[in-house]
C-alpha cells in the first residue's frame, strides 16, 4: 500500500479511528476518575461520539473506498453510522443514574460501549467478508461483557454465558461460510465474489456457503431460527444495555445483511425465498409469543424479534426502495425503542424493578406525562398513525407491493395486527388499572432529555416523514 493510499484509507476511516482512540484514552483516564465524578465519563464519551459524528459528516460528500477494497465510506454507511451514534449517545445519557442504582459505576462500561460502537461502524462500512467479521466480533465481544455487567445477579451471568456460547456457534457457522466462499471463488470481497460467479451456473457449494453466511448474520439480528438467545439476553442484561442492543447492533446486522443479501451473488440465487420465509416466521413467532409475556423486557425482546421480521420484509422487497425502507425502519425503530427502554430504565428505582408489566398499573394516574410518552411509543411500535412507526411500516409495505409481493404484504399487516394486541395490552395496564403502590421514577435531566428527544423523533418523523424519507432514499445504494 502506498503512502497516498494509506492516507486515503485513514481519512475514510477517520470516524472509526476517533472512536477507538477515544475509547483507549478513556480506558486509561477512567482509572483516575474518583467516585462521584462519574459525570466526567458520560460527557467524555458523548464528546467522543460527537467528534466522530462531525468527522463522518465532513467525509460524507463522496464515496471513499479504503484498505484495498475491504472498507468503504459511502452514504449508506454514513446513514447507519448516524443511527449508531444516536443509539450510543442516548444509551450514555440513560446510563448515568441507572449505573448508580445498580452499582456499576466503572469506566469500562463506557469504554466497552465505545468499542462496540466502533465495531458497528466497521460493519456498516465493510465490503469484505473479513472486515465484516472483524466488526461483528468487536460488537459481540463487547456486548457479551456488557450483558454480564450486573455481576451480582445470577440472571445477568446466565444471560452472558448463554450469549457467549450461542454467539460462538453462530460465529463458527459464519466463518465456515466465509471459508467456503474463499475456497470456491478465491476471494472474500463482496464485489469480486459477484464478479466471479456471473455468467456460469451457480455452484451448489456456493449456495451452501451463502446459507451459512445468512445463518450467521440472522443470528445477530435475532431472526428465527436463531432467535432463542434474544429473550434471555434482553431480560438478563442491564436495561440500558438491552436498549442499546435492541437498536445499535441490530441495525449493524441489517447494514451487513443489506450489503450481502442485495449483492448480485445472492440476488442471483433465489435466496429471497429463504429470506421471505425467515421474515414471515420471525414476525409470526415474535408476535405470538409476545402475547403471553409478563416480563416487560422479555415482551420487548419478542417485540424486537417481530420488528426484525418486519424489517426483513424490506430486504425481501429489495431494490433501492426496499433498502431505503429497511434503513428508515431502523432509524424510526431506534427512536421509539430507545424511548420505551428509557422509560423502563427510569422505572428501576428503589425496590421497583420496572420489569413486570404489573409495575405499570395506574402509571397514568401517578405520572400522566410519562404515561402519555409511553402511549406514544407503544402506539408507534404498533404502527398506528400519525406516529413514525406507521410510516416505517407503510414504506416497507409500499416497497413490497411495488415488487409485486402483495401476499407477503397482507401477511405482514395481519401479523402486525396481532402484534398490536400486546402493545395495547400495556396501554390498558397503564391507563385502565388502579395503581398498586406509589413509586418514584429515576428521572434525571439527562433521562428527561432523552425521553423528550425520542418523543420528538417519534412524532416528528410521523408527521413530517418527507425529509427522512429523502435522506434514506438518498443514502440507499443501488438506486
Amino acid at each position, binding site marked *: 500500500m502506498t503512502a497516498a493510499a494509506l492516507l486515503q484509507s485513514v481519512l475514510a476511516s477517520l470516524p472509526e479511528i476517533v472512536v477507538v482512540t477515544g475509547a483507549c484514552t478513556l480506558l486509561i483516564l477512567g482509572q483516575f476518575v474518583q467516585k462521584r465524578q462519574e459525570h466526567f465519563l458520560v460527557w467524555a464519551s458523548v464528546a467522543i461520539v460527537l467528534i466522530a459524528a462531525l468527522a463522518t459528516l465532513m467525509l460524507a460528500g463522496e464515496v471513499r473506498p479504503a484498505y484495498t477494497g475491504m472498507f468503504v465510506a459511502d452514504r449508506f454507511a454514513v446513514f447507519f453510522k448516524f443511527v449508531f451514534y444516536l443509539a450510543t449517545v442516548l444509551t450514555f445519557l440513560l446510563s448515568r443514574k441507572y449505573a448508580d442504582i445498580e452499582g456499576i459505576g466503572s469506566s469500562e462500561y463506557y469504554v466497552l460501549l465505545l468499542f462496540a460502537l466502533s465495531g458497528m461502524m466497521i460493519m456498516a462500512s465493510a465490503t469484505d467478508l473479513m472486515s465484516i467479521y472483524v466488526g461483528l466480533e468487536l460488537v459481540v465481544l463487547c456486548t457479551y461483557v456488557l450483558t454480564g455487567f450486573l455481576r451480582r445477579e445470577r440472571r445477568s451471568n446466565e444471560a452472558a454465558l448463554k450469549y457467549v456460547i450461542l454467539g460462538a456457534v453462530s460465529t463458527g457457522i459464519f466463518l465456515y461460510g466465509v471459508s467456503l466462499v474463499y475456497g470456491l471463488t478465491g476471494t472474500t470481497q463482496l464485489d469480486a465474489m459477484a464478479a466471479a460467479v456471473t455468467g456460469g451456473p451457480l455452484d451448489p457449494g456456493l449456495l451452501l456457503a451463502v446459507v451459512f453466511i445468512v445463518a450467521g448474520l440472522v443470528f445477530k439480528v435475532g431472526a428465527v431460527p436463531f432467535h432463542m438467545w434474544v429473550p434471555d439476553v434482553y431480560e438478563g442484561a442491564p436495561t440500558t444495555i438491552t436498549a442499546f442492543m435492541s437498536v445499535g447492533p441490530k441495525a449493524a446486522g441489517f447494514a451487513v445483511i443489506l450489503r450481502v443479501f442485495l449483492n448480485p451473488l445472492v440476488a442471483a440465487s433465489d435466496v429471497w425465498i429463504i429470506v421471505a420465509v425467515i421474515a414471515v416466521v420471525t414476525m409470526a413467532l415474535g408476535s405470538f409469543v409476545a402475547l403471553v409475556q409478563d416480563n416487560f423486557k422479555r415482551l420487548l425482546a419478542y417485540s424486537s424479534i417481530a420488528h426484525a421480521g418486519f424489517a426483513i420484509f424490506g430486504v425481501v422487497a429489495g431494490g433501492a426502495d426496499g433498502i431505503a425502507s429497511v434503513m428508515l425502519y431502523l432509524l424510526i425503530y431506534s427512536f421509539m425503542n430507545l424511548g420505551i427502554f428509557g422509560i423502563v430504565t427510569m422505572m428501576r428505582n428503589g425496590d421497583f424493578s420496572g420489569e413486570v408489566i404489573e409495575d405499570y398499573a395506574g402509571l397514568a394516574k401517578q405520572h400522566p406525562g410519562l404515561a402519555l410518552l409511553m402511549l406514544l411509543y407503544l402506539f408507534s411500535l404498533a404502527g398506528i398513525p400519525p406516529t413514525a412507526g*406507521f410510516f416505517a411500516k407503510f414504506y416497507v409495505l409500499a416497497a413490497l407491493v411495488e415488487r409485486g409481493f402483495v401476499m407477503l404484504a397482507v401477511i405482514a399487516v395481519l401479523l402486525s395486527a396481532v402484534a398490536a394486541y400486546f402493545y395495547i395490552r400495556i396501554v390498558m395496564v397503564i391507563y385502565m388499572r388502579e395503581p398498586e403502590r406509589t413509586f418514584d421514577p429515576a428521572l434525571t435531566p439527562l433521562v428527561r432529555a432523552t425521553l423528550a428527544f425520542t418523543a420528538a423523533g417519534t412524532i416528528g418523523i410521523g408527521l413530517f416523514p418527507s425529509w427522512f424519507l429523502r435522506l434514506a432514499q438518498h443514502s440507499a445504494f443501488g438506486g
Partner: protein
Amino acid sequence: MGLPLLSLIVFTPAAGAAVLMFLRSDAAVRWVALGVTVLDLALCIAMLAGFDTTTHAMQFTETRQWVPAFGINYALGIDGISALFVFLTALLGSTCVLASWVAIDRKVKEFMVSLLAMEALMLGVFCALDLFLFYVFWEAMLIPMYLIIGVWGGDGRVYAAFKFFLYTLAGSVLFLVGIIVLYFNGGETFDILALTAQDLPFGVQSWLFFAFLVAFAVKVPMVPVHTWLPHAHVQAPTAGSIILAGVLLKMGAYGFLRFSLPMLPDASVYFSTLMLSLSALAIVYGGLLALAQDDLKKLVAYSSISHMGFVTMGLFALNLRGLEGGILQMFNHGVTTGALFLFVGLIYERTHTRSIADYGGMMKAAPVYTAFLALFILSSMALPGTNSFVGELLVLSGGFSANLAVGAAAVLGALLGAAYLLGMYGKVALGPASVSARFKIRDVNAREIAAILSLTVFVLWVGLYPKPFLNIIDASAKHLLAQVHGEESGP
C-alpha cells in the same frame, strides 16, 4: 383562495385539546371544551352557508405537499356527500360535551382532550381528499376512542375497548395494503379524485373491493363482523356511544361512497347483490336481536345494526333514490340514534341501571324527558313527519327497484323496529309508576334540554322539509351514480 376554512374546522378542536392541557379546574375544562365545539359548529354552519349545491365538484379545497416522494398531499375538500357529515360531526361534538358534563367526574381534562382529538380526527376523515391522509385520520381515531371506552367506560370496559380496537385494526390493515395496491395500479397517486378517474381492470377491482369491504364492513358494522359493536356501545360512556353511533358507524358507509363505488364501479355493480343480501340480513337480524334485549343500551346498539343495514342497502341499490336515501339516512341515524344514546345516558346517570325491567311509569316522574323520548322513538321508527321517514322511504323505494326480495326483507325489518321500539317505550314510559318510583328521578334540566333540542330541530326539519338537505346531496349523488354506471355527467 381566502381562509382555509376546512383546515380551521379540522384543527379547531385539536387546538382546543392543546389548550385544555394547560387548564387546572374541571369547570374551566368543561366550558372551554363546550366553547371550542360550539365555535367549530359555527364554522361548519358558515361552511354550509357558502356551499354551492349546484355542483358535484369539491369545494373549499386546499392542497399542500406533504410527502412528495410518494405524491402524498395534505388535501382537503368537501362535496355534497361529505358536507352533511362534517356538519353532523360538529353538531354531535357539542352534544357530547354537554352529555359528559356531569357524567364524567374523574379525569375530566383527559376525557375532554380525547373527545376533542376524536372530533378533529373524524372531521379530518370526512374532509380528506388524499387517500394517505384519509388513512392517517381514519386509523388515528383508534387511539382516543380506545381510551374513551377503556378509561371512562363501564365495568366490562377493558374487554370492550380491546375488542373494538382489534376488530377495527384488523379491518384497516388490509385497507392499508389495498391503498398501496391502488396506488401502484392507479398511476402512483394518492389523490382521491385522480384515482376515481382511473379505469382499473376487473380483477384488481374485485380484489380491492374485498380488501376495502373488510375495513368498511367492520366500521359500519355489517353482519357478521358486528359483534364488537354491542360491547363497545354498552361499555362506552354516553359521549362515546354518541360518537360511535353518530359518526363512527358512518365512516364505513362513507368509505363505500368515497372509495368502493367510484373507484371500483365494476366490482361494486358485480357484488351489489351480495351487498344487498348482507344489508337485508343485518336489517332483520339486528331487529330480532334488538327485540330480545332487556338492556336499554344494547337495544339501541342492535337497532343501529339494523338501521345501518338500511343505509348500506340504499347505497348498493345503485339507483338515485336509494343512494340519496342512504346518505340522508346516515345523517338521520346520527341524529336520532345519537339522541337515543343520550336519553339512555341521562336516565342511567340518575338510576345506574339500564335494565328495561327496572323502569316503568317514567311519564309521571319525568314528563319532559318522556315527551322528547317519544319523538325520537317515533323518528327511529320512521314515522311520517320525522327525519327517518324521508330517508327510509327513499331507501325502500330504491331497494325495491333493485331487488324485490331484499326490499321485502327490509320492510319486515321496519316492522320489527316498530315492535322493539314501541315495546321499549311502553315499558319505560307508560307501565305502572311503582316500578321506577324508588329511584326518585329528576326531570331533565336546562343543560340537558339544550343538548336534546339541538338534535330535535333536525328530526323535525328533515322530516317536514327535507329539500335543503336533499339539495346538498343531490348533485354529488347523481355524479357518483354516473361514475358507477360508467356515464359521464357535466359539472
